[in-house]
Protein backbone atom coordinates (compact mmCIF):
# COMPACT_ATOMS: atom_id res chain seq x y z
CA UNK A 1 0.00 0.00 0.00
CA UNK A 2 1.14 3.52 -0.76
CA UNK A 3 2.56 5.63 2.04
CA UNK A 4 0.05 7.98 3.62
CA UNK A 5 1.33 11.54 3.31
CA UNK A 6 -1.54 13.44 4.91
CA UNK A 7 -3.86 12.04 7.50
CA UNK A 8 -6.61 13.57 9.60
CA UNK A 9 -7.98 11.57 12.51
CA UNK A 10 -11.27 12.73 13.95
CA UNK A 11 -10.46 16.42 13.55
CA UNK A 12 -12.85 18.71 15.37
CA UNK A 13 -12.50 22.48 15.47
CA UNK A 14 -14.60 25.00 17.34
CA UNK A 15 -14.34 28.73 16.75
CA UNK A 16 -16.00 30.83 19.40
CA UNK A 17 -18.44 28.08 20.21
CA UNK A 18 -19.22 27.40 16.56
CA UNK A 19 -18.34 24.00 15.15
CA UNK A 20 -16.28 24.46 11.96
CA UNK A 21 -14.94 20.94 11.57
CA UNK A 22 -17.08 18.11 12.89
CA UNK A 23 -14.94 14.98 12.88
CA UNK A 24 -12.82 14.81 9.74
CA UNK A 25 -11.13 11.55 8.81
CA UNK A 26 -9.00 11.79 5.72
CA UNK A 27 -6.10 9.96 4.14
CA UNK A 28 -4.06 11.16 1.19
CA UNK A 29 -1.65 8.53 -0.15
CA UNK A 30 1.64 9.34 -1.82
CA UNK A 31 1.32 10.46 -5.44
CA UNK A 32 -2.33 11.36 -5.04
CA UNK A 33 -3.78 14.63 -6.26
CA UNK A 34 -6.52 15.35 -3.78
CA UNK A 35 -9.10 18.00 -4.61
CA UNK A 36 -10.96 19.43 -1.64
CA UNK A 37 -14.29 21.00 -2.49
CA UNK A 38 -16.84 22.84 -0.47
CA UNK A 39 -18.89 25.97 -0.35
CA UNK A 40 -17.54 29.12 1.24
CA UNK A 41 -17.30 28.57 4.97
CA UNK A 42 -17.45 24.78 4.71
CA UNK A 43 -14.13 24.50 6.55
CA UNK A 44 -11.64 23.97 3.70
CA UNK A 45 -9.18 26.64 4.83
CA UNK A 46 -9.50 25.65 8.50
CA UNK A 47 -8.69 22.04 7.63
CA UNK A 48 -5.68 23.10 5.57
CA UNK A 49 -4.45 25.47 8.27
CA UNK A 50 -4.59 22.68 10.86
CA UNK A 51 -2.68 20.40 8.50
CA UNK A 52 -0.05 23.11 8.12
CA UNK A 53 0.21 23.61 11.87
CA UNK A 54 -1.12 27.17 11.75
CA UNK A 55 -4.17 26.28 13.75
CA UNK A 56 -4.71 23.84 16.61
CA UNK A 57 -7.50 21.31 16.44
CA UNK A 58 -10.02 21.24 19.30
CA UNK A 59 -9.95 17.44 19.16
CA UNK A 60 -8.30 14.80 17.01
CA UNK A 61 -4.98 15.06 15.27
CA UNK A 62 -3.43 15.65 11.89
CA UNK A 63 -0.35 13.87 10.54
CA UNK A 64 1.77 15.30 7.76
CA UNK A 65 4.59 13.13 6.35
CA UNK A 66 3.99 10.83 9.30
CA UNK A 67 4.49 13.51 11.97
CA UNK A 68 2.00 15.44 14.07
CA UNK A 69 1.23 18.63 12.17
CA UNK A 70 1.39 20.68 15.35
CA UNK A 71 4.97 19.67 16.02
CA UNK A 72 6.70 19.60 12.64
CA UNK A 73 10.45 20.11 12.73
CA UNK A 74 12.09 22.60 10.39
CA UNK A 75 13.45 19.74 8.29
CA UNK A 76 9.97 18.23 7.95
CA UNK A 77 8.51 21.60 7.05
CA UNK A 78 11.15 21.94 4.36
CA UNK A 79 9.63 18.97 2.55
CA UNK A 80 6.27 20.70 2.23
CA UNK A 81 5.39 23.43 -0.26
CA UNK A 82 2.49 25.57 0.84
CA UNK A 83 0.52 28.23 -0.96
CA UNK A 84 -1.86 29.93 1.43
CA UNK A 85 -5.18 31.39 0.44
CA UNK A 86 -5.03 34.84 -1.14
CA UNK A 87 -1.33 34.69 -2.08
CA UNK A 88 -0.21 36.93 0.75
CA UNK A 89 3.38 38.02 0.26
CA UNK A 90 5.13 40.99 1.86
CA UNK A 91 3.85 43.84 -0.36
CA UNK A 92 6.73 46.29 0.06
CA UNK A 93 9.47 43.77 -0.80
CA UNK A 94 11.12 43.50 -4.16
CA UNK A 95 10.53 40.16 -5.87
CA UNK A 96 14.27 39.46 -6.12
CA UNK A 97 14.74 40.05 -2.40
CA UNK A 98 11.83 37.76 -1.51
CA UNK A 99 13.24 35.06 -3.77
CA UNK A 100 16.73 35.26 -2.27
CA UNK A 101 15.25 35.03 1.23
CA UNK A 102 13.23 31.93 0.32
CA UNK A 103 16.22 30.41 -1.44
CA UNK A 104 18.38 30.99 1.64
CA UNK A 105 15.81 29.43 3.98
CA UNK A 106 15.06 26.33 1.92
CA UNK A 107 16.97 23.14 2.66
CA UNK A 108 16.64 22.19 -1.02
CA UNK A 109 16.22 24.54 -3.95
CA UNK A 110 15.90 23.64 -7.63
CA UNK A 111 17.34 26.75 -9.26
CA UNK A 112 16.95 25.41 -12.78
CA UNK A 113 13.25 24.67 -12.35
CA UNK A 114 12.68 27.96 -10.56
CA UNK A 115 14.45 29.82 -13.38
CA UNK A 116 12.27 28.00 -15.88
CA UNK A 117 9.13 29.08 -14.03
CA UNK A 118 10.30 32.68 -13.71
CA UNK A 119 10.96 32.91 -17.44
CA UNK A 120 7.71 31.12 -18.36
CA UNK A 121 5.70 33.51 -16.25
CA UNK A 122 7.93 36.50 -17.13
CA UNK A 123 8.16 37.42 -13.45
CA UNK A 124 9.95 40.75 -12.97
CA UNK A 125 12.61 40.41 -10.26
CA UNK A 126 13.09 44.16 -9.84
CA UNK A 127 9.48 45.03 -9.13
CA UNK A 128 7.86 45.21 -5.73
CA UNK A 129 5.35 42.55 -4.74
CA UNK A 130 2.56 45.13 -4.50
CA UNK A 131 3.19 46.17 -8.12
CA UNK A 132 2.42 42.65 -9.35
CA UNK A 133 -1.00 41.68 -10.65
CA UNK A 134 -2.97 39.06 -8.71
CA UNK A 135 -2.14 36.50 -11.38
CA UNK A 136 1.60 37.22 -11.16
CA UNK A 137 1.51 37.06 -7.39
CA UNK A 138 -0.17 33.66 -7.61
CA UNK A 139 2.47 32.47 -10.07
CA UNK A 140 5.33 33.80 -7.95
CA UNK A 141 3.85 32.15 -4.88
CA UNK A 142 3.51 28.82 -6.63
CA UNK A 143 7.01 29.06 -8.12
CA UNK A 144 8.42 29.65 -4.63
CA UNK A 145 6.48 26.71 -3.22
CA UNK A 146 7.62 24.40 -6.00
CA UNK A 147 11.28 25.39 -6.09
CA UNK A 148 11.87 23.65 -2.75
CA UNK A 149 11.16 20.29 -4.45
CA UNK A 150 8.34 19.53 -2.03
CA UNK A 151 7.20 15.98 -1.41
CA UNK A 152 3.86 17.45 -0.51
CA UNK A 153 2.35 20.52 -2.11
CA UNK A 154 -0.60 22.12 -0.35
CA UNK A 155 -2.54 24.74 -2.27
CA UNK A 156 -5.42 26.63 -0.70
CA UNK A 157 -7.68 27.81 -3.51
CA UNK A 158 -4.71 28.71 -5.71
CA UNK A 159 -6.70 29.98 -8.69
CA UNK A 160 -8.95 32.32 -6.72
CA UNK A 161 -8.92 35.74 -8.37
CA UNK A 162 -7.09 34.60 -11.50
CA UNK A 163 -8.52 35.29 -14.93
CA UNK A 164 -9.25 32.45 -17.33
CA UNK A 165 -5.90 32.61 -19.12
CA UNK A 166 -3.88 32.80 -15.90
CA UNK A 167 -5.90 29.93 -14.45
CA UNK A 168 -5.11 27.86 -17.51
CA UNK A 169 -1.38 28.58 -17.20
CA UNK A 170 -1.60 27.65 -13.56
CA UNK A 171 -3.25 24.33 -14.39
CA UNK A 172 -0.67 23.55 -17.05
CA UNK A 173 1.98 24.11 -14.45
CA UNK A 174 0.17 21.88 -11.99
CA UNK A 175 0.11 19.12 -14.62
CA UNK A 176 3.84 19.64 -15.07
CA UNK A 177 4.35 19.14 -11.33
CA UNK A 178 2.13 16.09 -11.24
CA UNK A 179 4.20 14.50 -13.96
CA UNK A 180 7.21 14.59 -11.69
CA UNK A 181 6.71 11.29 -9.96
CA UNK A 182 5.84 10.74 -6.35
CA UNK A 183 4.55 14.24 -5.66
CA UNK A 184 1.48 14.48 -3.52
CA UNK A 185 -0.79 17.47 -3.92
CA UNK A 186 -3.66 18.57 -1.72
CA UNK A 187 -5.58 21.51 -3.09
CA UNK A 188 -8.85 23.20 -2.40
CA UNK A 189 -10.89 24.82 -5.09
CA UNK A 190 -14.33 26.01 -5.96
CA UNK A 191 -13.89 25.55 -9.71
CA UNK A 192 -15.17 22.10 -10.47
CA UNK A 193 -13.82 21.77 -13.98
CA UNK A 194 -10.32 22.42 -12.61
CA UNK A 195 -10.79 19.71 -10.04
CA UNK A 196 -12.03 17.33 -12.69
CA UNK A 197 -8.95 18.04 -14.78
CA UNK A 198 -6.29 17.44 -12.20
CA UNK A 199 -7.61 15.54 -9.20
CA UNK A 200 -7.41 11.78 -8.65
CA UNK A 201 -9.55 11.88 -5.60
CA UNK A 202 -12.10 14.35 -4.33
CA UNK A 203 -13.48 15.26 -0.96
CA UNK A 204 -16.56 17.41 -0.51
CA UNK A 205 -16.85 19.26 2.78
CA UNK A 206 -20.38 20.03 3.86
CA UNK A 207 -21.00 21.73 7.18
CA UNK A 208 -17.68 20.63 8.66
CA UNK A 209 -18.04 17.02 7.59
CA UNK A 210 -16.52 15.17 4.69
CA UNK A 211 -19.70 14.22 2.85
CA UNK A 212 -17.86 12.63 -0.05
CA UNK A 213 -14.37 11.12 -0.19
CA UNK A 214 -13.74 8.90 -3.19
CA UNK A 215 -11.82 8.57 -6.46
CA UNK A 216 -12.95 11.15 -8.98
CA UNK A 217 -14.19 8.74 -11.63
CA UNK A 218 -16.13 6.76 -9.05
CA UNK A 219 -18.03 9.87 -8.04
CA UNK A 220 -19.94 10.08 -11.31
CA UNK A 221 -20.68 6.38 -11.14
CA UNK A 222 -21.69 6.26 -7.51
CA UNK A 223 -23.96 9.23 -7.23
CA UNK A 224 -27.10 8.68 -9.25
CA UNK A 225 -30.05 10.87 -9.89
CA UNK A 226 -33.18 9.00 -10.90
CA UNK A 227 -36.53 10.11 -12.12
CA UNK A 228 -39.22 7.69 -11.03
CA UNK A 229 -42.78 7.86 -12.28
CA UNK A 230 -45.46 6.05 -10.31
CA UNK A 231 -48.97 5.05 -11.35
CA UNK A 232 -50.32 6.77 -8.29
CA UNK A 233 -48.87 8.89 -5.50
CA UNK A 234 -45.21 8.00 -4.93
CA UNK A 235 -44.38 6.29 -1.62
CA UNK A 236 -43.60 8.77 1.15
CA UNK A 237 -40.81 6.77 2.68
CA UNK A 238 -38.24 4.76 0.84
CA UNK A 239 -36.36 2.27 2.96
CA UNK A 240 -33.15 3.11 1.17
CA UNK A 241 -29.87 4.32 2.64
CA UNK A 242 -27.64 7.13 1.35
CA UNK A 243 -30.41 9.28 -0.06
CA UNK A 244 -28.84 12.62 -0.82
CA UNK A 245 -32.03 14.28 -1.98
CA UNK A 246 -35.60 13.31 -2.58
CA UNK A 247 -38.22 15.47 -4.22
CA UNK A 248 -41.79 14.64 -5.12
CA UNK A 249 -43.80 16.45 -7.75
CA UNK A 250 -47.18 14.85 -8.41
CA UNK A 251 -46.60 11.29 -9.59
CA UNK A 252 -42.96 11.95 -10.22
CA UNK A 253 -40.10 11.51 -7.79
CA UNK A 254 -36.58 12.83 -8.20
CA UNK A 255 -34.15 10.85 -6.15
CA UNK A 256 -30.41 11.34 -5.69
CA UNK A 257 -28.64 8.39 -4.12
CA UNK A 258 -25.00 7.94 -3.15
CA UNK A 259 -23.18 4.61 -3.38
CA UNK A 260 -25.50 3.41 -6.10
CA UNK A 261 -25.39 -0.31 -6.90
CA UNK A 262 -27.57 -3.08 -8.28
CA UNK A 263 -28.92 -3.97 -4.84
CA UNK A 264 -30.37 -0.52 -4.46
CA UNK A 265 -31.72 -0.67 -7.96
CA UNK A 266 -33.44 -4.00 -7.27
CA UNK A 267 -34.80 -2.64 -4.04
CA UNK A 268 -36.15 0.45 -5.72
CA UNK A 269 -37.92 -1.68 -8.30
CA UNK A 270 -39.97 -3.34 -5.56
CA UNK A 271 -41.82 -0.03 -5.14
CA UNK A 272 -43.16 -0.61 -8.64
CA UNK A 273 -42.46 2.60 -10.51
CA UNK A 274 -43.94 2.53 -14.01
CA UNK A 275 -40.91 4.29 -15.35
CA UNK A 276 -37.39 4.83 -14.09
CA UNK A 277 -34.80 6.88 -15.91
CA UNK A 278 -31.35 8.11 -15.00
CA UNK A 279 -30.81 11.86 -15.05
CA UNK A 280 -27.22 12.58 -16.20
CA UNK A 281 -25.19 14.57 -13.70
CA UNK A 282 -22.01 16.52 -14.24
CA UNK A 283 -19.54 16.99 -11.41
CA UNK A 284 -21.10 20.40 -10.85
CA UNK A 285 -24.56 18.88 -10.51
CA UNK A 286 -23.24 16.33 -8.03
CA UNK A 287 -21.59 19.08 -6.03
CA UNK A 288 -24.78 21.11 -5.93
CA UNK A 289 -26.86 18.11 -4.90
CA UNK A 290 -24.45 17.22 -2.12
CA UNK A 291 -24.09 20.73 -0.74
CA UNK A 292 -27.68 21.85 -1.14
CA UNK A 293 -29.01 23.32 2.08
CA UNK A 294 -32.37 21.68 1.55
CA UNK A 295 -32.53 18.59 3.68
CA UNK A 296 -33.76 15.35 2.23
CA UNK A 297 -37.46 14.78 2.70
CA UNK A 298 -38.86 11.91 4.73
CA UNK A 299 -35.64 10.19 5.64
Amino acid at each position, binding site marked *: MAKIVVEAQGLVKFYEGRCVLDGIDLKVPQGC*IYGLLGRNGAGKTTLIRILMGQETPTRGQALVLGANSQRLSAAQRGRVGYVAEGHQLVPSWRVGWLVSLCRGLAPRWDERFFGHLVSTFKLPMDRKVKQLSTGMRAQLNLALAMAVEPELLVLDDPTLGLDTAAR*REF*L*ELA*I*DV*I*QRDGRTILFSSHI*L*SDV*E*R*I*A*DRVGILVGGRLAVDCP*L*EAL*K*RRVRKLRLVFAETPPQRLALTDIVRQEVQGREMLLTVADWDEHKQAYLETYGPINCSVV*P*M*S*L*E*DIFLECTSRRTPVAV
Partner: protein
Amino acid sequence: MLIQIDHGCDRPVYLQIADQVKRDVALGRVAEGDRLPTVRELSSRLVINPNTIAKAYRELEHQGIIITRPGSGSYIAQGSSRLSEAVREKLIREQIDRLMVEAIHMQIDRRQLFGWIDEALAKFKFPEKGAGDGEDRG
Protein backbone atom coordinates in the same frame (compact mmCIF):
# COMPACT_ATOMS: atom_id res chain seq x y z
CA MET B 1 -6.10 13.24 -32.91
CA LEU B 2 -8.52 15.80 -31.56
CA ILE B 3 -9.94 15.04 -28.16
CA GLN B 4 -12.35 17.30 -26.37
CA ILE B 5 -13.47 16.98 -22.80
CA ASP B 6 -16.96 17.99 -21.82
CA HIS B 7 -17.07 18.85 -18.13
CA GLY B 8 -20.84 19.16 -18.22
CA CYS B 9 -21.12 15.50 -19.16
CA ASP B 10 -21.96 12.72 -16.74
CA ARG B 11 -19.39 10.42 -18.32
CA PRO B 12 -16.06 10.17 -16.48
CA VAL B 13 -13.22 11.97 -18.28
CA TYR B 14 -11.22 8.80 -18.89
CA LEU B 15 -14.18 7.19 -20.66
CA GLN B 16 -14.74 10.34 -22.73
CA ILE B 17 -11.16 10.03 -23.99
CA ALA B 18 -11.57 6.31 -24.72
CA ASP B 19 -14.85 6.96 -26.54
CA GLN B 20 -13.26 9.54 -28.80
CA VAL B 21 -10.34 7.31 -29.73
CA LYS B 22 -12.79 4.52 -30.55
CA ARG B 23 -14.85 6.88 -32.63
CA ASP B 24 -11.82 8.09 -34.58
CA VAL B 25 -10.92 4.48 -35.32
CA ALA B 26 -14.47 3.69 -36.43
CA LEU B 27 -14.56 6.75 -38.68
CA GLY B 28 -11.28 5.71 -40.27
CA ARG B 29 -9.49 8.86 -39.09
CA VAL B 30 -6.81 6.74 -37.52
CA ALA B 31 -5.74 3.35 -38.77
CA GLU B 32 -3.98 0.26 -37.50
CA GLY B 33 -0.40 0.94 -36.52
CA ASP B 34 -0.88 4.67 -35.95
CA ARG B 35 0.92 5.85 -32.88
CA LEU B 36 -1.04 7.58 -30.14
CA PRO B 37 0.41 10.53 -28.25
CA THR B 38 2.20 9.48 -25.09
CA VAL B 39 0.41 9.85 -21.78
CA ARG B 40 2.61 12.84 -20.97
CA GLU B 41 2.01 14.55 -24.29
CA LEU B 42 -1.73 14.13 -24.11
CA SER B 43 -1.80 15.13 -20.45
CA SER B 44 -0.01 18.39 -21.23
CA ARG B 45 -2.08 19.07 -24.32
CA LEU B 46 -5.46 18.48 -22.70
CA VAL B 47 -4.36 19.77 -19.28
CA ILE B 48 -5.67 16.62 -17.67
CA ASN B 49 -4.09 14.58 -14.90
CA PRO B 50 -1.74 11.98 -16.48
CA ASN B 51 -3.30 9.25 -14.33
CA THR B 52 -6.62 9.90 -16.05
CA ILE B 53 -5.00 9.60 -19.48
CA ALA B 54 -3.22 6.42 -18.43
CA LYS B 55 -6.53 5.04 -17.25
CA ALA B 56 -8.14 5.81 -20.61
CA TYR B 57 -5.29 4.00 -22.38
CA ARG B 58 -5.63 1.01 -20.07
CA GLU B 59 -9.34 0.89 -20.86
CA LEU B 60 -8.61 1.00 -24.62
CA GLU B 61 -5.99 -1.68 -24.22
CA HIS B 62 -8.41 -3.83 -22.28
CA GLN B 63 -10.93 -3.51 -25.10
CA GLY B 64 -8.28 -4.45 -27.64
CA ILE B 65 -8.42 -1.06 -29.40
CA ILE B 66 -4.78 -0.20 -28.81
CA ILE B 67 -1.63 -2.04 -27.89
CA THR B 68 1.19 -0.65 -25.81
CA ARG B 69 4.75 -1.63 -26.55
CA PRO B 70 6.91 -0.89 -23.53
CA GLY B 71 9.40 1.87 -24.24
CA SER B 72 7.88 2.59 -27.62
CA GLY B 73 4.36 3.86 -27.10
CA SER B 74 0.75 2.99 -27.77
CA TYR B 75 -0.54 2.06 -31.20
CA ILE B 76 -3.89 1.39 -32.77
CA ALA B 77 -4.28 -2.37 -32.78
CA GLN B 78 -5.59 -4.39 -35.67
CA GLY B 79 -9.36 -4.35 -35.56
CA SER B 80 -9.83 -7.53 -33.62
CA SER B 81 -12.15 -7.56 -30.66
CA ARG B 82 -11.12 -9.74 -27.78
CA LEU B 83 -14.70 -10.75 -27.18
CA SER B 84 -16.21 -13.96 -28.45
CA GLU B 85 -18.67 -13.90 -31.36
CA ALA B 86 -21.60 -14.69 -29.05
CA VAL B 87 -20.77 -11.91 -26.60
CA ARG B 88 -20.23 -9.43 -29.42
CA GLU B 89 -23.61 -10.29 -30.90
CA LYS B 90 -25.33 -9.98 -27.53
CA LEU B 91 -23.80 -6.56 -26.81
CA ILE B 92 -24.65 -5.13 -30.22
CA ARG B 93 -28.17 -6.56 -30.18
CA GLU B 94 -28.77 -4.96 -26.81
CA GLN B 95 -27.71 -1.61 -28.22
CA ILE B 96 -30.02 -2.08 -31.21
CA ASP B 97 -32.93 -2.92 -28.92
CA ARG B 98 -32.26 0.19 -26.88
CA LEU B 99 -32.21 2.26 -30.06
CA MET B 100 -35.54 0.77 -31.18
CA VAL B 101 -37.18 1.55 -27.84
CA GLU B 102 -36.03 5.15 -28.01
CA ALA B 103 -37.12 5.48 -31.65
CA ILE B 104 -40.61 4.17 -30.89
CA HIS B 105 -41.01 6.56 -27.97
CA MET B 106 -39.94 9.45 -30.16
CA GLN B 107 -42.38 8.49 -32.90
CA ILE B 108 -39.70 7.79 -35.49
CA ASP B 109 -41.13 5.60 -38.24
CA ARG B 110 -39.37 2.57 -39.71
CA ARG B 111 -38.47 4.19 -43.04
CA GLN B 112 -36.89 7.18 -41.38
CA LEU B 113 -34.88 4.99 -39.03
CA PHE B 114 -33.70 2.79 -41.91
CA GLY B 115 -32.57 5.86 -43.80
CA TRP B 116 -30.54 7.13 -40.86
CA ILE B 117 -28.94 3.78 -40.27
CA ASP B 118 -27.98 3.65 -43.95
CA GLU B 119 -26.37 7.06 -43.65
CA ALA B 120 -24.46 6.00 -40.56
CA LEU B 121 -23.30 2.82 -42.32
CA ALA B 122 -21.86 4.97 -45.09
CA LYS B 123 -20.23 7.39 -42.66
CA PHE B 124 -18.28 4.87 -40.63
CA LYS B 125 -15.56 2.67 -41.98
CA PHE B 126 -16.34 -1.00 -41.61
CA PRO B 127 -13.42 -3.39 -42.03
CA GLU B 128 -13.38 -5.56 -45.15
CA LYS B 129 -14.94 -8.93 -44.52
CA GLY B 130 -12.43 -11.41 -43.22
CA ALA B 131 -10.02 -8.77 -41.99
CA GLY B 132 -9.31 -8.75 -38.30
CA ASP B 133 -10.87 -12.15 -37.73
CA GLY B 134 -7.62 -13.41 -36.39
CA GLU B 135 -6.68 -15.87 -39.18
CA ASP B 136 -3.63 -13.83 -39.97
CA ARG B 137 -2.52 -13.80 -36.36
CA GLY B 138 0.41 -15.74 -34.90
